[in-house]
């Protein structure tokens, strides 16, 4: 079944009503629970709930949907590919064709390998200038999602996992934080658990919880020198945060230990993990944080992953970045359209065609087709002559699953609304910053 089809049964009458109330233009959409289009449902968030992990977080909605994320880090030996000399001399071309053979290669990494050649982190080779830095690979992060009731190779779970992994690895900054030295690196396991059966599409909840868990993650401080076997300071209070904090008052404001020269950390204080927001469109209205009923009448839905890059980093490539990026320097990481469950909903039957509704007796239901207002005494049992017409056209008040896709402009507007200055993404990031990290 498609990724969003947690079999929600809604009647055509409800769907028609919901679609009608959500696509109102003049006073703006009326949402079933009365929220404004950009208002999120209140959620309670806490971090550091599991002492046995490097970082953990838990977020739950008022209606009970709850997610727990645990982050554990292990030191792992970095495999040295046999063709290393080929890789370094051949420069780029050799690099992409030389197969990465490592002792415990899991099957998945070959596609990651292909993806890597498409991906973006080759450019750091030139930036860092040092060749062995090149061997930063996305397999150092393993992310798994567990949804009760769905098997872990179910297409819905796989779609969520790949979206969250993609958001994390898209800009290649994150993997550099796991670098210890040329022989060892951190292997980070991110395990995301949805406690309750999903009441609404779980993606935004999972990504906010992952964001908080990564903010709270701390790695023990490295004491050993450059390429020795890693030795760590076992005083947990001295552990450094994965995402170095701004000048927060916490005593151990992360002193960037001299032995971890990573370009990103040195350049900027406050880069933050990505968040993924679910945006939905009904008619011309753009709605955030949709509940299950709202998603069931969506014409189109998009998942936008955004991260806050280091604010002082200059962007050589793009020509039109406004110089004074005052507030946050948001990076668009990935956008995916989500197949809204509205395409799987049963269609309503207009009165003119409905054998059991005896045709359109009450004048209050003017259907668009002129000939449909049959005289009162005509026996409704006979199928209406222009049933085919009502099948293709939209009859007011009758629900029909949306056909075709979304307009190009609408998709662009949805992404723009997330990214705009002072828009939703920034306010969500501000909200998340407010959570004090224990």
């Amino acid at each position, binding site marked *: 079944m498609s990724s969003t089809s947690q079999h929600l049964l809604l009647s055509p009458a409800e769907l028609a009503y919901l679609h009608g109330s959500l696509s109102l233009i003049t006073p703006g959409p009326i949402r079933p629970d009365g929220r404004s289009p950009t208002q999120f449902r209140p959620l309670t968030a806490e971090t550091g709930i599991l002492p046995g992990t490097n970082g953990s977080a838990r977020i739950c909605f008022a209606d009970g949907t709850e997610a727990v994320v645990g982050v554990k880090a292990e030191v792992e030996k970095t495999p040295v590919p046999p063709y290393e000399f080929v890789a370094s001399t051949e420069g780029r071309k050799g690099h992409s064709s030389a197969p990465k053979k490592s002792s415990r290669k899991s099957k998945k990494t070959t596609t990651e390998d292909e993806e890597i050649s498409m991906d973006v982190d080759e450019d750091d080779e030139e930036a860092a200038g040092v060749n062995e830095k090149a061997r930063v690979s996305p397999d150092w992060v393993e992310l798994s999602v567990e949804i009760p*009731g769905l098997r*872990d190779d179910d297409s819905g779970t796989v779609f969520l996992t790949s979206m969250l992994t993609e958001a994390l690895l898209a800009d290649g900054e994150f993997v550099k934080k796991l670098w210890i030295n040329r022989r060892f690196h951190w292997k980070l*396991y991110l395990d995301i658990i949805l406690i309750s059966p999903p009441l609404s599409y779980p993606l935004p909840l999972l990504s906010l919880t992952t964001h908080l868990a990564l903010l709270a993650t701390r790695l023990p401080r490295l004491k050993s020198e450059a390429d020795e076997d890693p030795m760590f300071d076992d005083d947990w209070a001295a552990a450094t945060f994965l995402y170095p904090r701004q000048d927060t008052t916490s005593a151990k404001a992360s002193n960037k230990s001299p032995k971890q020269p990573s370009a990103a950390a040195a350049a900027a204080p406050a880069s933050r993990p990505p968040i993924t927001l679910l945006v939905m469109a009904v008619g011309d209205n753009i709605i955030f944080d949709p509940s299950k009923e709202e998603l069931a009448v969506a014409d189109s839905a998009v998942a936008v992953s955004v991260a806050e890059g280091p604010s002082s980093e200059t962007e050589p490539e793009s020509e039109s970045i406004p110089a004074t990026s005052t507030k946050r320097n948001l990076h668009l990481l990935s956008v995916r359209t989500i197949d809204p469950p509205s395409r799987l909903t049963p269609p309503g039957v207009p009165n003119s065609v409905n054998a059991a509704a005896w045709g359109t007796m009450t004048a209050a239901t003017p259907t668009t087709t002129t000939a449909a207002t049959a005289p009162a005494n005509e026996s409704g049992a006979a199928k209406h002559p222009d049933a085919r017409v009502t099948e293709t056209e939209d009859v007011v008040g009758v629900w029909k699953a949306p056909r075709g896709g979304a307009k190009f402009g609408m998709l662009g507007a949805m992404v723009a609304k997330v990214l705009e200055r002072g828009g939703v993404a920034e306010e969500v990031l501000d909200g998340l910053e407010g959570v004090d990290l224990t």
Partner: protein
Amino acid sequence: MPLDTSTYNLALLRVDGRRWNELRQQKGQLGVQPSADGSAYLEMGNTKIQCIITGPNERDTKSTSSASTAPTSHGLGATVAVSIMIAPFATVDRKRRGRNDKRLQEMQTTIASGLAATVQGQSYGPRSTIHISLNVLSQDGSLLACLINAASLALVDAGVPMTDYLVACTAGSTSSYAAADEEADPLLDLNTQEEQELPFLTLATLGATDKVVAMVCESRVQLTRLEGMMATAADGCKGVRDFLDGVVRDKGELMVQEGAIGRGEVVSSMDLD
């Protein structure tokens, strides 16, 4: 690293400072999940478990029911389906359990049959099922016992009629199989270190009645010590039952104070009106 029991008989204190018959610190909460029929969160020491109950409801025949690993065991009426999910970060080193993990399925069957004997399901038809999903957030010993306690606490929250709480506790014995010392003390409520070293058993009783519903022992232990261990476990179960009972009463009184439900009457034997 093996648990050194050498210092035990000096001060009769265990590695976490408990006496031989002390339960670990327990925390419990009811109704943590408003959208589920019944829910409970239970901590015994560092073993933290959250239990969600949906049902008793009827899965209609043709619905694509999700892949719930349901070793249903037919009690008097309703069937009980249990699915356990242990978080990969629950243990010290991360371990991701596959779908058909034999140990999990065995625990699921034990819990399902234990609960089916406790739940008075005859008022629901055989077609209705009670789905119990247990999430283990962190695991530090006596896992099966803690799962059973969390499940029965959540069942009480869901208002499912039960003969009594199904409470469980583990008990071990300080002497490993080799040492033949006779006066070895039984130990109550073991954590992971003690479980890996010492022989232990899990005992589930019907509330404080000492009727044993389920007993699981997977390590070799001398027969003479078995009786002592079972008696200790049974008493441990009484302590656990009092704790669970306390959690339920607190929740009930809270709801009465909030005026959500009317105050019940008190029956007094002299009431002969």
